[in-house]
């Protein structure tokens, strides 16, 4: 399936992305997904730890004061 076209509002002009912008967008998406993966990993590790300790996140925040 071909990638959908992307558009930029460049000043008062609404135009399709240039090749350079498509490439930057692809790089940004990879970075965005990498950051999301890290955030999900952190959230899962946190949940595992809370489950092991048998406390809620609010109780954990209380402990850290």
């Amino acid at each position, binding site marked *: 399936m071909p990638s959908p076209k992307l558009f930029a*509002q*460049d*000043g008062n002009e609404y135009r399709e992305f240039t090749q350079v912008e498509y490439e930057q967008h692809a790089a940004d998406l990879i970075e965005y997904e990498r950051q999301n993966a890290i955030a999900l990993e952190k959230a899962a590790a946190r949940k595992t730890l809370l489950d092991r300790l048998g406390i809620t996140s609010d109780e954990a925040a209380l402990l850290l004061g």
Partner: protein
Amino acid sequence: MAIQTFTAAQILTAAQMNALQANDYNQTVSTKTANYVLVAADKGTRVVMNSASATTITVNTSLFSAGDSLRLQNINTGAVVVTAGTATVTSAGSLSIPQWGGGQLFFTSASAAVYFPDAVNVSSGLAYISGTTFSAASTVSLPTNTFSATYTNYKIIYTVTAASTDGTAINVRLRASGTDSSAASYSNAGVTYQIGAATIGAANLNGGTAWQFTQFNSADRNKVILEIMSPQVAADTNFFWDTYGRVAGSQGGGHGNGEFRAATQFDSLTLFPSAGTITGSYQVYGYAIA
């Protein structure tokens, strides 16, 4: 010619008639170079102040009647203040007349006058530069040369009424000659908050390829306010951000600041969501240097 009082059987000369008529079409002028106290003969005439030092025009009682009026003008650099002597003087505007300013002094009684200053364009501290709407845009760039030598600092207000993807990060890249800079020189820090939650989070980024903070909310209206400091100066560019939209799955926003650590000069910037498109509008303002 000051107003005349004619009596019964007096002969009105052609010269008097011409002089009185002339005042209607080419008002009688008396130029003052120092503080001046209005006299009855000023009625219907134009008093022009011409002093490089500050001066006053004093208004006293019992010289004019209800309905009388005269023009006041200032043609020199010294400010002129219309001053209540024994009469009262009120105005919706300033009683100080700047150079090339003026107005009408209108008497409502023998002891009260109203000064009506002529409208002038007052220079504002915040000047509108540009703005537009955008729809289903993956990136939104300000026009080339939005940042110029005319202003040093800028305020940009975005209203995003629709985001196609919920919870995607808000990103900003500085731009020069139509090209975004993705140099790894962007850093920002700040606090984030969620409506109805006590937890305060952080939006920290060091050495990224764009400023990044909080997220777009697809279910609600978003606000992004940026203050961009010295983007046109060959030095680090600083910025301050204020947002309202989405934070970690909830309604919320944040405040913070950051920098682009390189002496690059920019003339524009680009706002974009990490994924999807945004619809809305923006306005850019420049802070007057003086």
